């Protein structure tokens, strides 16, 4: 089984982003960048499938600027066999990414695609579902467990509001990873060195003839209204009184 995983280069989750003074965007020019944490979970799951002898090859794909090569190197250090960068300098939105990935899927013909459920920058939570729609494939979003049944089907436990559900999907299929799916490993130094030698194929997005121009325009970006520190209360009794009489939430 061939597995395709996707990786987005995002601001590291430890960075507290600031809005630019002109409110045009967030200021991330000098921020540390990392693979999207949910994508690391997706990579980990694919690598585990390979270690179990279920996956035969793990291919990592990223869409974006040339510099996204660094997250592909990380993906390969974590165990992906090779990588593909769909290169463009255009600001990519989820629908455009889904269209680019569809082109990669048509070329690579994977049996399974595992993606992070969302990226922690735009928090859109769309690309996996959109790609599944464009491919007319089964989807299981927010996966907490993936079992390859060996008969061309996949059993996936997924998180839903108030509990979980289990789906059976016919391959080829697309799964998006939630937090509970696994705990990604750290890349060891030897693996990081090995990953330098693994190949990255670059596809110019322009060469695919797909309209990837943004459909949604950012008008402005603001800091959320600042929460002010409130008051300290001296006792449980005082707290309950405040919650009842002042805040009226009890």
């Amino acid at each position, binding site marked *: 089984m061939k597995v395709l995983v996707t990786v987005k280069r995002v601001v590291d989750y430890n960075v507290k982003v600031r809005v630019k003074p002109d409110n045009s965007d967030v200021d991330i020019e000098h921020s540390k960048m990392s693979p999207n944490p949910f994508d690391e979970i997706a990579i980990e799951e694919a690598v585990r499938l390979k270690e179990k002898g279920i996956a035969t090859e793990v291919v990592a794909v990223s869409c974006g600027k040339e510099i996204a090569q660094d997250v592909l190197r990380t993906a390969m250090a974590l165990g992906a066999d090779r990588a593909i960068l769909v290169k463009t300098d255009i600001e990519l*939105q989820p629908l455009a990414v889904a269209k680019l990935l569809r082109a990669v899927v048509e070329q690579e013909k994977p049996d399974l695609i595992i993606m992070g459920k969302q990226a922690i920058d735009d928090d859109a939570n769309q*690309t996996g579902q959109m790609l599944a729609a464009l491919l007319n494939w*089964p989807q299981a979003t927010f996966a907490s467990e993936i079992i390859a049944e060996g008969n061309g089907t996949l059993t996936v436990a997924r998180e*839903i509001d108030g509990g979980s559900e289990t789906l059976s999907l016919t391959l080829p299929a697309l799964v998006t990873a939630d937090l509970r799916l696994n705990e990604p490993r750290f890349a060891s130094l030897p693996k990081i060195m090995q990953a330098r030698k693994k190949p990255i194929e670059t596809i110019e997005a322009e060469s695919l003839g797909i309209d990837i121009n943004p459909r949604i325009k*950012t008008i402005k970006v603001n800091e*959320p209204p600042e929460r002010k520190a409130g008051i300290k*209360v001296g006792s449980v009794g005082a707290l309950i009184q405040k919650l009842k009489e002042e*805040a009226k939430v009890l």
Partner: protein
Amino acid sequence: MSSPILVIAEHNGKKISPSTLRTLSAASQLAQSLNVGIDLLLLSNAEQKPVLQEQAVKFESVARVIALSGEHLGVALAESWAKEIVAVVKEFNASHILAAASAQGKNILPRVAALLDVAQVSEVMSIESPTRFVRPIYAGNAWSTVESQQERHVLTIRTTCFEPVSDQRTDAPEMIGITSTAAPWRGTTLVKQDITEGGRPELTNARVVVSGGFAVGSADNFKMLEQLADKLGGAVGASRAAVDAGFIGNDHQIGQTGKVVAPDLYFAVGISGQVQHLAGMKGSKVIVAINKDPDAPIFGVADYGLVGDLFEVIPQLTAQV
């Protein structure tokens, strides 16, 4: 005829989710400024239809209820629901398609958007105009105002930002009944569903959330927080540190990579207040922090702070609320 606003009703086969009432509230803002009606789309199988329809006709602000039934629609599989929704959008020429930004809405709506070739706007927090919306990015650390430059608009609604419409209306909306003729989707089957019924409310929908941090100390000690949550009809959350320490499952994790919650009342118990955690709960209406360390950053965002030992404070609080 003018293009209606289409709202997808979310349900579990028996009951339409309260989040639908909040989505309708967002839709009615659009409907008022465009002077158009709201269509509520009810997808179900024939057996579920009567009981759901009975609820839907009482929802304020709905002009028409479109009840579309088919044997394969009893379970909200994204693959089959998305195809039906797209057919309805085209048939009725809806200009805006809305669903709650719940697990169900998030699963289905991007699939609809892609089939319509529309870029979706996720987690709409407020509506500035029929094409301009405010949504959170970077786990709510910034708010982005966006303009959807398209013929149709597909939106998921952050339901905690909109007050629900009434579900007690007495004049009935127009009813449109449709039977699906689409071939059932074969690639996906629901094996089972485990819903914690009658238990605690779901974290992202709960009115009260009681969250614990590393200082809670053990899985056993988390029971103390569960008791407080149960007394208040709330849900239990946790910081990443508490989850990493194995005190509680990571489906309870609140923060940038966990769940984002915005309840009326949030208790942060023994939580220092790291940036990632704050990102997941800053939108709460009232925040209470209980911490031994008077300098904990969590006090900087709390409306009410109580400096003290959580092992003394929590049992007292549980006994007195």
